[in-house]
């Protein structure tokens, strides 16, 4: 275990999120079990008031979660100075078996949070709380993710041992390495890049296509949501195997975290921000199809879907612009590829 300001800071944040969420879930449970829209007694009115608390807490939890995610990425770099062999965040995360699962779970949590908030938004646009039971059930289902994330966080930080020599991004994202990192790098850019564009075009195509039947449309939109997940994963691979080397201008440096630092003008923040925005909007656009339970909901959801689609398209363009600018600059400057 390393006792360090950064770790203390992350712990405070993580515990805050867990506490907020636990409090949310307790309220959600209360609402879920006692909700009776037709009732006019005092208890029902109190429950209605409680829905505002849950919304506020959840919004706060998402913002804090995103904030803490960024801080984690920056702090890991600082912590890497304590671990021999680790030169950046990747090295710290691979210092024990909990590091990367923790980060993956954090990404999953961002998606789940966003889905919940969008459903909450749609529900609040309706006069008769049509999605209340569903959304609070969903909240209760999401809860274990946060608990598990916190457990992983503590397992990860408490097991950081300055005595153990770890490896770093140079060796982890090396083609010869076996494992996820090696797999990512072994995927040559001439496959990964066209695949990325193909998926982007596919999801665009799916977004514009439509079928008459409700069931068919659900399948279609679900497929669309899945393509966005694939897009997200492929993008991360391309970030590691292609975009990062042009940001660092070094063939061996493939860290997906370092470019969040001030040394690289925080380019990672717009890059990941836009990627998340695109993937989340696209994913939820598809998922929302399942919540068109009545005509009134269908109306609101369709409008929301259109907006999300627009956000997704612009974010993807933004992501590509930010991501490929270093490559273009390098290429125009030197006339070479790395």
């Amino acid at each position, binding site marked *: 275990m390393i006792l360090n300001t950064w770790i203390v800071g992350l712990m405070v944040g993580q515990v805050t999120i867990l506490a907020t969420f636990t409090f949310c879930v307790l309220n959600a449970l209360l609402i879920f079990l006692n909700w009776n829209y037709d009732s*006019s*007694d005092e*208890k029902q009115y109190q429950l*209605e008031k409680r829905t505002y608390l849950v919304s506020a807490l959840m919004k706060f939890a998402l913002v804090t979660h995103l904030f803490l995610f960024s801080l984690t990425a920056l702090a890991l770099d600082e912590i890497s100075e304590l671990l021999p062999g680790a030169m950046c965040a990747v090295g710290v995360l691979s210092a024990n078996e909990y590091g990367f699962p923790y980060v993956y779970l954090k990404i999953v949590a961002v998606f789940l949070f966003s889905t919940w908030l969008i459903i909450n938004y749609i529900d*609040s646009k309706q*006069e008769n709380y049509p999605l209340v039971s569903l959304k609070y059930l969903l909240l209760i289902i999401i809860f274990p993710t946060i608990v598990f994330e916190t457990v992983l966080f503590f397992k990860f930080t408490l097991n950081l041992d300055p005595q153990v020599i770890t490896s770093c991004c140079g060796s982890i994202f090396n083609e010869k390495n076996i494992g996820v990192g090696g797999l990512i790098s072994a995927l040559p850019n001439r496959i990964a890049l066209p695949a990325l564009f193909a998926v982007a075009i596919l999801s665009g195509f799916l977004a514009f296509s439509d079928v008459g039947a409700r069931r068919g449309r659900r399948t279609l939109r679900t497929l669309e949501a899945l393509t966005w997940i694939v897009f997200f994963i492929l993008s991360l691979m391309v970030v590691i195997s292609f975009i990062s080397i042009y940001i660092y201008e070094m063939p061996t440096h493939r860290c997906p975290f370092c470019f969040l630092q001030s040394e690289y003008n925080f380019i990672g923040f717009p890059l990941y921000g836009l990627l998340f925005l695109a993937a989340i909007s696209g994913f939820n656009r598809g998922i929302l199809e399942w919540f068109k339970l009545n005509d009134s909901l269908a109306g609101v959801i369709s409008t929301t879907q259109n907006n999300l689609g627009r956000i997704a398209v612009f974010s993807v363009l933004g992501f590509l612009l930010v991501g490929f600018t270093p490559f273009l600059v390098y290429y125009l400057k030197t006339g070479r590829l790395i």
Partner: protein
Amino acid sequence: MIKTIKATKIYNQGRTNEVTALFEASVEVEKGCIAVLKGPSGSGKTTLLSLVGCQSKPNSGEIRIDGKRVSKLPDKFLNAFKRQYMGFVFQNYQLIPDLTVSDNIMLPLLPSGIVFKERIRRADELMDQFDLTKRKKFKVKNLSGGEQQRTAIARALINRGKILLADEPTAHLDSQLTDEFLKIVGRIKDMDYTILMSSHDAKVCENPLVDRVFEMKDGRIIQ
């Protein structure tokens, strides 16, 4: 315009101090009318006003305003509706003492996101109409009772709603100010408002402006 159907309100429901403040009250006020709820204190006038004014929800029965069933609306929609339709003059005016007259008057417009210029324009118009322009920059706590009431009325009208509700508006006024108030009510009626007031003042109830008087006792409408 205003219709309540067997509206019942119970306070502290399920507790030992449970009070049935209003029991199956059915009232109807036509568009453009002035109606008065008359009765001794504790007869349920204020509770009924509060239900009609979307300030609380009935425990049974229904409230319909302009055909819209408001009694089951979620807070957000209820308040949007309130802002669109209602103006409320409270018994003790309930102004914010540390704010100026014009700030107080503009308060109801803040949630609607009406732009600053328009807010100022409307407030100036009303202050002009109610002879408050000189007091514009005064903090409300430095105003006289009559001025405070006029500020409260201006605040109730700034959203340009359709209904004005007033709870015991003349309780703290002397006879001269009561006359003045009734004059103002007449003017508001001409602005196409439907008005519902509670009062036990004979001067108000018997005024020719009033179209309808509902007598209340022990939480029921008796006439």
